[in-house]
């Protein structure tokens, strides 16, 4: 489904973020990418959603090279990928309902679909009671659940979660991982990055370990080894 082919990223200051990365992700897989801060996890994610482009190599999303797409096609690609960020990135002047509805509006869903799906997905992340609040009125864990709700509401083929638990306490962390696992069980591919040992051990899926821009381990049913 996703294939990284010898991807390297060298920033203008000659720092190497990715160094000849190659790996694939199968549909319905739950892949965890672990590594210290600065190992290149976030850069790897940015390559997939075309937020940044590689210096060398290519990234394929189902046989299409992500970086050969026009602006319109990039927009369409992003609609098939749900992204969850460490810093939530909710839109502050929109209510929770509007934040989630926005993702659906962007993909051209009808008002009826939006009115039906948004409450439903908020129920899934257990936030129905905050539907008309603004992001600043929510706790970190709640905001991250909204971000997940926004990512899954368009029923994407894959969910990318970049350090989604980075700013959360253990209880909320576990809650977020549980939601991601549930989404994966329902048939969506999940790509998760983290540097949290507890998270990796809870997930018990495929674990890719990165160090200094390279893949050093790729284990089925892996554990946190650094």
């Amino acid at each position, binding site marked *: 489904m996703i294939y990284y082919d010898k991807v390297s990223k060298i920033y203008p200051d000659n720092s190497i973020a990715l160094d000849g990365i190659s790996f694939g992700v199968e549909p319905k897989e739950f892949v965890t990418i672990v590594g210290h801060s600065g190992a290149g996890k976030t850069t790897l994610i940015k390559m997939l959603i075309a937020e940044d482009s590689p210096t060398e190599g290519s990234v394929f999303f189902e046989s299409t090279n992500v970086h050969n797409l026009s602006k319109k096609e990039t927009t369409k690609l992003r609609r098939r990928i749900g992204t969850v960020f460490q810093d939530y990135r909710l839109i502050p002047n929109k209510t929770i309902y509007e934040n989630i509805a926005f993702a659906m509006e*962007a993909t051209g869903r009808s008002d009826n679909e939006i009115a039906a799906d948004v409450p439903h997905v908020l129920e899934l992340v257990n936030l129905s009671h905050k539907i008309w609040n603004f992001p600043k009125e929510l706790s970190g864990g709640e905001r991250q659940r909204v971000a997940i709700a926004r990512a899954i509401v368009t029923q994407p083929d894959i969910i990318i979660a970049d350090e989604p638990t980075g700013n959360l306490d253990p209880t909320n962390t576990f809650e977020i991982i549980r939601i991601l696992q549930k989404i994966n069980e329902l048939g969506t591919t999940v790509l998760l990055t983290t540097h949290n040992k507890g998270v990796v051990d809870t997930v018990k899926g495929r674990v890719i370990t990165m160090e200094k821009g390279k893949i050093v381990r790729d284990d089925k049913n892996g554990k946190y080894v650094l």
Partner: protein
Amino acid sequence: MFITPLKRIIRTGFVNFWRNGFLSFAAIVVITLSLCAFGGLIFGSAFGRALLTDVKDKVDVNVYFTLTAQESDILSVVQDINKLAEVASTTYISRDQVLANFKNKWQDNAYIMQGLDEIGSNPFPAMLTIKAKDPGQYAGIAHFLQTKNPQDASGVPLIEKVNYEQNKLVIDRLSRIIPAAEKAGSVVAIILILVAIIVVWNTIRLIIFTERDEISVMKLVGASNTYVRGPLVVSGIMYGLVSGVITLVVMAAFSYWSTALIFRFAGIQIAADFGLVINIFSQYFMQNFGQIFVFIIGAGIILGGVSSYVAARRYLKV
């Protein structure tokens, strides 16, 4: 297909306008100030034009005919003068009329009336007042009269005197000052308009700069450029629209109270000297309201909308 996104863009633009209360307020203040500068230019140029017209109107050339000239000969000369392209208007006063005017003016002064009686006959020549379309054209008219030097049937000149030479200094100065004043006015106007555009553009740019993170999130969630930019442009248009309405109200209030203000600050004598006793501002405002409305509201919408459209571009490159 097309209606739903448009509806959503407009709704989002309105909602953002309302929720970003302080930013909207700041934008409206800046755009209103700029539009008021435009309004000031409109009034300024109207005032300047009224003033120039008034001054131009005070300048004229008088032709005095000889006492022996026959009225029929004089009238044919007047007809020739009226045919000149440079002439805006002529006023002919016959000898009898001049005398009547004189008597009317001095009727209470016994000495003057007595002197007039002692002369016995009418000592006043017939007079023609010529107004040119432009002060620079008086030289041409005076030259025409000199070279033509109209005569009656027996070869006696009809014209006694043309007072162009006496008025020449003032006329020359005016014909130099007026175009210079007009040019200076346009330069000031252009500078003011440029400053206004730059200030508005920068304000809007700052507002959109504060929203750059949201813009990138929207893009990453899969929103098209149009869908992200649309609400920003709608908000920009709203800023312009509201500012335009406020500016029109300010202009209306100014034109309504302008006469009172001028009287208070300049005094009634100066106001009268400059022909400002009638309220030229409110007159101008009411007569040209349609044009002013379109210009101010249009300028507001274009300033707000175009600035937003261009300013958003940089952050859409995600």
